């Protein structure tokens, strides 16, 4: 096994891109990352995407993007794991380079969501859940998170307002990220009054529907300095699974796949949660932030929400999260999200996060597919 490093990153702004197609977004991010890496000889492209088949009527997307990016002929494969598609593609790229089969690979996450109507996108997103035994009953993806949030509030005796800082922090951090979708601050009062999508989950608990693509170029660490003055090293890459359906979980309020993948990642990195300087978690809904902090070992069970209430998740806090806006503020183009998390961690570890710069050496990203059926954890280290 070889050590692997990121030698280039690229991203499009997350937005409603009426003038850009699925392939345009993918090509923009791929070419930006390759240029950032000094145009190394790319041998393979791995593409993370969840919904192109349903929302664009386009499968076979990896070959399409490779072709349009000017790389017709190379190895190109798509990887899918619902909302964890982005980091699942990174995982496959990592395995290809670490194994020695591939030297230079580009990994891209792409999602184009805004060509379809809201109810159609809602139905498409629900396909991350169990089609025969959850979705059949009219359960939206928001409703699954609402079932989690209601039970969490009941068992841990917390009010909805306790989750406000997850959304407020994300919006505040997005203000300084030019690639974020939202550049408007969020107040506690607005959070309290937000309209319900599936109660107790409101519009302001939820990440937006949007378009975007983010990419990274990776190569063996031994060659990283050939291409980059500031490579970022992959210290851990781990995937774990759980039941797709919430009703099949042994313990509804604990993300078992989050714990399993984080433990594997900590073992690979020889580090623990106390060593992480920042944590890009999967804040698709405020409840997911709380559950992710608990599963990854940053808070005891039922205490994840306290880290938000006490401000420990802010840029100056004990464990900054969503430092470039997270899914809530930067946006959540689902199959691209995992790659946005990784690209933003690389920005932080390269010291390129601008006003949101965290003093950091080690950072972790955790990308959640569905309501926790797939959870992928990566740990990165600054080379400086």
């Amino acid at each position: 096994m070889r050590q692997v490093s990121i030698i280039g990153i690229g991203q499009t702004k997350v937005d409603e891109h009426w003038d850009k197609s699925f392939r345009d977004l993918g090509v923009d991010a791929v070419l930006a990352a390759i240029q950032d890496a000094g145009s190394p000889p790319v041998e393979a492209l791995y593409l993370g995407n969840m919904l192109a088949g349903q929302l664009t009527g386009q499968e076979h997307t990896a070959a399409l993007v490779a072709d349009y990016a000017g790389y017709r002929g190379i190895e190109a494969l798509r990887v899918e794991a619902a909302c964890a598609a982005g980091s699942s593609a990174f995982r496959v790229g990592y395995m290809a380079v670490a194994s020695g089969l591939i030297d230079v690979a580009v990994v891209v996450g792409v999602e184009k969501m805004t060509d379809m109507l809201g109810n159609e996108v809602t139905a498409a997103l629900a396909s991350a859940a169990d089609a025969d035994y959850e979705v059949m009953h009219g359960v939206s993806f928001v409703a699954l998170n609402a079932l989690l949030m209601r039970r969490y509030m009941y068992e841990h005796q917390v009010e909805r307002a306790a989750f406000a800082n997850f959304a407020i922090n994300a919006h505040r951090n997005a203000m300084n990220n030019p690639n974020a979708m939202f550049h408007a601050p969020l107040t506690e009062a607005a959070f309290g009054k937000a309209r319900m999508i599936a109660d107790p989950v409101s519009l302001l608990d939820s990440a937006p529907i949007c378009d975007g693509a983010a990419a990274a170029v990776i190569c063996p660490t031994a060659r990283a300095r050939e291409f980059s003055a500031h490579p970022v090293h992959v210290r851990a890459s781990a995937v774990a699974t759980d039941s797709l359906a919430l009703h099949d979980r042994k313990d509804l309020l604990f993300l078992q796949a989050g714990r399993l993948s984080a433990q594997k990642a900590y073992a690979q990195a020889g580090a623990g949660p106390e060593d992480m300087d920042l944590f890009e978690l999967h804040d698709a809904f405020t409840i997911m932030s709380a559950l992710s902090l608990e599963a990854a070992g940053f808070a005891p069970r039922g205490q994840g929400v306290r880290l938000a209430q006490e401000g420990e998740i802010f840029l100056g806090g004990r464990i900054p999260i969503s430092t470039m806006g997270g899914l809530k503020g930067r946006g959540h183009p689902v199959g691209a999200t995992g790659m946005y998390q990784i690209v933003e961690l690389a920005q932080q570890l390269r010291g390129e996060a601008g006003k949101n710069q965290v003093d950091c050496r080690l950072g972790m990203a955790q990308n959640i597919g569905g309501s926790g059926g797939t959870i992928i954890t990566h740990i990165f280290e600054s080379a400086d």
Partner: protein
Amino acid sequence: MHIPRQWRTRDQRLSLMGEVCPKCGVKLFPPRDVCPECSGPAKEPFALSGRGAVYSYSTVYHAPEGYESYVPYTVALVRLEEGPMVTAQLTDVDKEQVAIGMPVEMVTRKIAEDGEDGAILYGYKFRPALEAGAAC
């Protein structure tokens, strides 16, 4: 839901037909043929009683395509008295009256229509238990 899928799941949707593991005795719904506890084969049919209690719930205001005409409707996780948990809609109850722990029982109701020409999908929903002492 397309007709072959409706047909395949008819015993589950209309009579909560699950399975029991012959080795460790755990009741399974939906059926999965492999016991998640002991990984052994679990293909013996077992019909669940349909009695249980609300474990969590949510009222949906923004529905997926195909369910828009039913909003607002309330979905729940129901813990059945034999152990398995199921996801289903609640019916015959005002959303304000739903609470965690509320005893419920299975009934058969219309779930969705597949356009003007498609088949109507029937299946289980849960209503407040009519008999006293049905909670688990």
